[in-house]
């Protein structure tokens, strides 16, 4: 599904160079549920941005679903992102002035889909996340958990092969966090590959596999046994710890 080989990313300012990723290599199989963990500043967000085709990188090779993306134009990357990847963010990143329905509509619009097809997919996605009754609400009228479920609906509406989740429960209380994780697992079971970035080992444990990034490199390559359900999930009510990551 995803194959990175020796990918390097350097942030430069006038004074300093920061190596966010150094010779980063990772293989993710189709249908996997992978958790990427690591402390703040380890490079896991950079990995997510590169894997999500949001940022260019200096060197190395990256194949997404068999396509080498290194030399693709911005337009081609946008198209690939739109068709193959769904994003879920810590702070949901819903459009504040669009209602639930129109929020889910966004990626479908950029795929230039016909109205009937879009409507079918949106309705279907809303069924999956259980928010069909809320489609006319705007994000501010929803709870955090509901907002994140809308974001998940948006991510899956385009029927992507890969979902990139960045601290998906970081802004949620434990009950909501559990619902979101259940939903992600359900989606994974339906065949979608999921890569989740988190610094929370508890959360990571629910994934099939767990990799740890430290100083821009993978230090731990321990496959996890698939497991289902589970209690003791602890969400993070406050985001202060994550500020500036």
């Amino acid at each position, binding site marked *: 599904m995803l194959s990175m080989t020796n990918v390097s990313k350097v942030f430069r300012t006038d004074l300093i160079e920061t190596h966010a990723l150094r010779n980063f290599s990772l293989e993710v199989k189709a249908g996997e549920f992978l958790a990427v963990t690591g402390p703040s500043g380890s490079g896991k*967000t950079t990995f997510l*941005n590169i894997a*999500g085709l*949001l*940022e260019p990188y200096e060197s190395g090779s990256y194949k997404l679903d068999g396509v080498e993306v290194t030399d693709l134009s*911005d*337009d081609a990357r*946008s*198209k690939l*992102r*739109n*068709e193959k*990847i769904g*994003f879920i*963010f*810590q*702070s949901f*990143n819903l*459009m*504040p*002035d*669009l209602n639930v329905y129109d929020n889910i509509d*966004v*990626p479908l*619009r*950029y*795929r*230039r889909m016909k109205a009937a097809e879009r409507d079918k997919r949106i309705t279907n996605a809303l069924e999956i996340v259980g928010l069909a009754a809320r489609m006319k609400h705007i994000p501010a009228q929803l709870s955090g958990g509901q907002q994140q479920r809308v974001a998940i609906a*948006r991510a899956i509406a*385009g029927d992507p092969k890969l979902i990139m989740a*960045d601290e998906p429960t970081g802004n949620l209380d434990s009950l909501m966090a559990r619902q979101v994780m259940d939903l992600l697992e359900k989606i994974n079971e339906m065949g979608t590959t999921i890569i989740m970035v988190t610094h929370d080992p508890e959360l990571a444990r629910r994934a099939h596999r767990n990799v740890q990034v430290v100083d821009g490199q993978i230090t731990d390559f321990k496959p996890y046994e698939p497991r289902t359900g589970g209690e003791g999930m602890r969400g993070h009510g406050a985001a202060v710890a994550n*500020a500036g*990551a």
Partner: protein
Amino acid sequence: MFSYYLRLALASFRRNPGLTALMIFAIALGIAVCMVTLTSYRAAAHNPAGERGAVLFAPSVDSWDPENSYDKDNKSLAPDLLTYRDAKALYASDIPDRKLITYRTGDIYTRPDKGMDPHYIPTRMTSRDFFGMFDVPFLYGGPWDGKADEGPEPVIVLSKEENKKAFGGENSVGKTLNWKGREFRIVGVLDAWEPMPKFFDVSNGAFHEMEGAYVPFAWGPILELGSHGNTNCWKTETINNFQDFLNSECIWFAAWVELRTSEKQRAYKAYMDNYVLDQKKHGRFPRPLNNYLYDVDGWLKRNKVVEDDNKAMLTLAFAFLAVCLVNTVGLLLAKFLNAAPIAGVRRALGASRRDIFWQHLTESGVVALAGGVVGGILGVLGIWALRAWYGRFVDEAARVLPFDGKNFLIVIAIAVTAGLLAGLYPAWRIGRAAPASYLKVQ
């Protein structure tokens, strides 16, 4: 996608209504100011003869003072009017397809049956071809025939307004008016006709009122009708009667010729030059040979119908529009950059740079369109206010400020173009913003 971008633009306006209103208002006022000045400029710069203006020519010969040029500021210019002798001579040529000589006079007219109050009618002495050459529309009757020019016959053509005044607007063809103790038979009544600028007689004012009556030119010398317009003289001559005046170097006549081919134009110019060279032998035309044949456009330019003030105001108006636009660029940039995180999310969800660019350019376009419409309305109000204010005592101001739908469309087009230009940089800039930097913290 366009309709989608439109929806997004409207949603965006709801998010910042105050800022949006400010941008719309900025464009609107810039546009309104431009519209008012553009209207008066266009009115002055308009060529009312249209395409025919290219085959209609005003001959100009330099019969002026050897010591002083006619125009102090532009020494190369010949006078804008002709002497009686020269007007007659230029009219005598067979080269033109059609031709006329003319001047403005006027006097008190009465109706033999006392059916109207005796009153002053500004009168144009001219030739039959006047009506054909200038496409003058007739309501009743038509021009006098060619013979009437020669005799001359006592015939007269009335303007629509004058016919209303004198005959209550009825078909007056065949009736008579008394003028200078003679009866003039009405052969035609014009339909509404008011070319602006009044190109065939700009020396008496490009926006001067139209004449109420038209009479064969040859009556001028017979009835000793002096000019009720500009008369300029340079030479010391003893003038003790009207004949002396006609024979003097005083200028108050205009001639127009229609020359449909460039051969005829060259031939007529040669005719003018030959005439002047011949006159030099008789001691006239003391200045160097300096003759011109102006088409209508050239004639309007030569007479500076578009005044310097007009041009300066237009320049100022567009500078003002520039300020409004720079203002709008700044506000759009601020607005777009403020919403950059949302654009970042859209990019993450698969929008290309082009998508983001067009989305924001659409938003700029909608702002501009709204600005154009509001500006158009403000402009109409502005023109209306100016007309109301100046029209109180200046008829000419109202003439200089006509308003038509074409101007409105031009204004909207300018607004949208300007708005799109203003949106270009901000939309490009927001399209270039790296998406990743906005996703983490909102």
